[in-house]
């Protein structure tokens, strides 16, 4: 519900590469660290009991759906968590909020927490730079949000040098002291394990990856967004592109991710029958997708201004027919601009109408928030704060964090759903975005004014899950990937974009691949293959 779309869009394509995000897996080195992480006892999982969703979730990743906000929100923590002020570095993906002094919602939150929560709020892009500068300055805040896929390098040694090992307080049953943290799933916790130690509470996000969404009013003219094969999609795009209207947004790497799914390209790495790995870039499938994208580009169906920051308004007004966003829940972003519009989500299809497509699931979290090294009393205080801020959907704390105070920042509509007031829409978005990127409960589907959307999204998720593929290296760690992965991916993508836009011939692909492999790609493959979990299914021939 809270807008993480842009964060995941900027970096979401990294999920395809599977290299940058590995920075937060288990293990500091390919050998010992991974083993230590295997030996670690993850926090005991004890889901929040007070609430039944209207549409059930599932282990597969299907998110539970709520048609209305639960009446009589219950409290999930017993006492205000703080006695002393806390400082934190975080990032907002909305317009930065009014500062604490002139933001009643922030002040009310401080009141509920028991002391001031002083946030330094970065904006996008530029967070890794801010993070690195602060790190070098040696005066760290108490909490620093650590994103998994914005390319912060050498996470293992950095954590050991500057941050607090929390294993003792969270491993096994120890976590039960913090019930809201115990309600986070083991799969989420794996994000926060590095070198066999737990470094913070994970920040769950939608487990779904990127999808293509289109404005149904635009696609109506050509028989709808859903297509049977790549040729049909191409023809529709061509028909929709005329005058100043275009079929596709100019986010080439993200679009390419979608085409790759139709051509059967793997999610990050392909696991071969002998359990060796083949990287996405090395597959014929991805190469074919690049050629297909070049063909679309040559047909002038992409919006021609590559610097376009956000295509959403243009999709809503019909100038662009389709764009790539993260997760089926993103329909809400379009509703926000036009309440009468429910955008359509493309279900991947085989490129020739016969081959089985894949759907790439996302990373499932947006990282974790480590603590500055400190004493036990302070650690417990900070953990209590994380517990408060991770309160599940439907609780009092959740309302306080996301909606503020009734009668001030929100009021209840006819169905008893919380809706932001005018004051709320000024004070909330920037603050809520900054809070939810550093702390979150497990995700749910909830569209207050549009319960029917929740039903449809729940159904779409089930369709996508039929083709779901997860990155086999998720939750594992490669030194090389952590150190040079971001650089290699960026260089390879530069070449791909050159090829798609016709600045280079497809022959440049092989040259770029060679550089990717010798620059560290081959080494990464070895490191990932050595720690490939036994439970990961074979995805190639």
């Amino acid at each position, binding site marked *: 519900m809270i807008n993480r779309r842009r964060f995941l869009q900027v970096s979401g394509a990294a999920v395809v590469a599977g290299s940058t995000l590995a920075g937060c897996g288990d293990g500091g080195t390919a050998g010992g660290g991974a083993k230590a992480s295997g030996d670690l006892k993850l926090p005991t999982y004890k889901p929040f009991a007070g609430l039944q969703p209207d549409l059930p979730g599932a282990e597969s990743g299907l998110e539970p759906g709520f048609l209305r906000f639960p009446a009589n929100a219950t409290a999930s923590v017993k006492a205000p968590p703080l006695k002393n002020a806390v400082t934190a570095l975080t990032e907002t993906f909305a317009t930065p909020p009014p500062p604490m002094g002139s933001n009643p919602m922030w002040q009310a939150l401080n009141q509920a927490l028991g002391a001031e929560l002083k946030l330094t709020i970065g904006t996008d892009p530029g967070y890794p730079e801010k993070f690195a500068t602060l*790190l070098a300055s040696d005066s760290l805040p108490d909490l620093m949000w650590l994103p998994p896929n914005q*390319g912060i390098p*050498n996470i293992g040694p950095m954590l050991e040098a500057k941050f607090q090992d929390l294993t003792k307080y969270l491993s096994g049953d120890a976590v039960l002291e913090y019930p809201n943290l115990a309600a986070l799933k083991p799969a989420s916790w794996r994000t926060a394990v590095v070198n066999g130690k737990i470094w913070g509470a994970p920040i769950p996000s939608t487990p779904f990856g990127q999808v293509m969404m289109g404005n149904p009013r635009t696609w109506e003219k050509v028989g709808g967004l859903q297509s049977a094969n790549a040729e049909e999609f191409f023809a529709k795009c061509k028909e929709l592109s005329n005058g*100043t209207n275009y079929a596709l947004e100019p986010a080439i790497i993200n679009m390419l991710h979608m085409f790759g799914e139709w051509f059967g390209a793997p999610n990050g790495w392909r696991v071969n029958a002998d359990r060796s790995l083949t990287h996405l870039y090395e597959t014929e499938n991805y190469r074919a997708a690049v050629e297909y994208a070049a063909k679309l580009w040559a047909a002038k169906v992409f*919006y*021609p201004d590559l610097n376009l920051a956000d295509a959403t308004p243009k999709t809503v007004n019909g100038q662009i027919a389709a764009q790539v966003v993260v997760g089926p829940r993103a329909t809400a972003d379009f509703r926000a601009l036009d309440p009468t519009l429910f955008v359509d989500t493309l279900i991947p299809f085989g490129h020739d109408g016969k081959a089985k497509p894949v759907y790439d699931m996302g990373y499932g979290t947006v990282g974790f928030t480590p603590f500055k090294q400190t004493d036990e009393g302070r650690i417990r205080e900070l953990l209590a704060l994380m517990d408060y801020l991770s309160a599940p959907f439907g609780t009092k704390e959740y309302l306080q964090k996301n909606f503020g105070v009734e009668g001030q920042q929100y009021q209840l509509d006819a169905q008893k759903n919380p809706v932001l007031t005018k004051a709320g829409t000024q004070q909330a978005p920037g603050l809520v975005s900054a809070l939810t990127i550093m702390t979150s409960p497990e995700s749910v589907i909830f569209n207050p004014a549009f319960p029917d959307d929740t039903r449809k999204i729940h159904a779409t998720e089930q369709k996508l899950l039929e083709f779901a593929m997860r990155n086999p290296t998720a939750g594992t760690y490669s030194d090389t990937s952590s150190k040079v992965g*971001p650089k290699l991916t960026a260089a390879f993508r530069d070449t791909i974009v050159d090829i798609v836009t016709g600045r280079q011939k497809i022959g440049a692909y092989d040259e770029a691949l060679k550089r990717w492999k010798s620059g560290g790609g081959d080494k990464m493959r070895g490191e990932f293959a050595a720690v490939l979990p036994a439970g990961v299914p074979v995805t190639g021939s």
Partner: protein
Amino acid sequence: MVLLMVPGVVFLLAFFYLPVLGNVVAFQDFQPYLGIMHSEWNGFTNFVNLYANPDFWDALRNTLILAGAQLLLFFPIPIGLALIVDSLVSNRVRRWFQTIAYLPHFLSWVLVVTLFQQSLGGAGFVNNLLRQAGLDPIPFMTNPDTFPLLVVAQLVWKDAGWAMIIFLAALTTVDVSLYEAAAADGAGRWRRLWHITLPSLRTVIVLLLILRIGDILSVGFEQFILQRDSVGPGAAEVLDTFTYYAGVVGGDWSSGAAAGLAKGVVGALLLWGANSLAHRLGEPGIFQRRGSS
């Protein structure tokens, strides 16, 4: 007198000389969480890696091409502008012209690039007109081959008026009686320009040229990072953006610093070379050797 110098000296020390010491990270495997004191020293490894990195050479080549284009195409324009303004008789027209010409200097690169994007971009004003007329759009902003021209055009639009001011000031120092004498001897407009105006400007022109050459590897940063995606790094990656992507974004701070340091050293050598050349041609240059007048 000394007291008056203090703020300036402190400013220079704090923001220019002290940060120079930070260049030592070029000889380290610098990690921000370890700091300069605890990062490992690795000698010239970063420079060796830089030498072996084709991307660095591409960035250097682009920088030189763009610098060359700027030098050839941009440098003469402020001189021309200054001559035009100087020849305007009406004070009012002159002031208007001057103001209009130098105002764009105060716009940020983001605004300038956006303005160009809105008028010349793929979805911009000109191309939309062309489309309505049934013609093919022209890729002004996305053609890597013509990128140097685009960049110079933006630079001229933004900064030519500003650069003109220094020449205008120099023009006011020309002794008017020289023109009168020349006119009396029957020298026409062009002869006066050639024999009086330009020779009077020569010292300033050479001075600015030397400064520009010393600075030639700094072709700009924002202008290129903003347009890198539109034309690709093959045309728009310059040394400064390379440093940014390798160092700050890629987390390899040390090779970024190494590239920056190499750039600084080359710049200093160029400056020295250009100045020596100026001396040989009998110009004062930016500083003078002891003993020469």
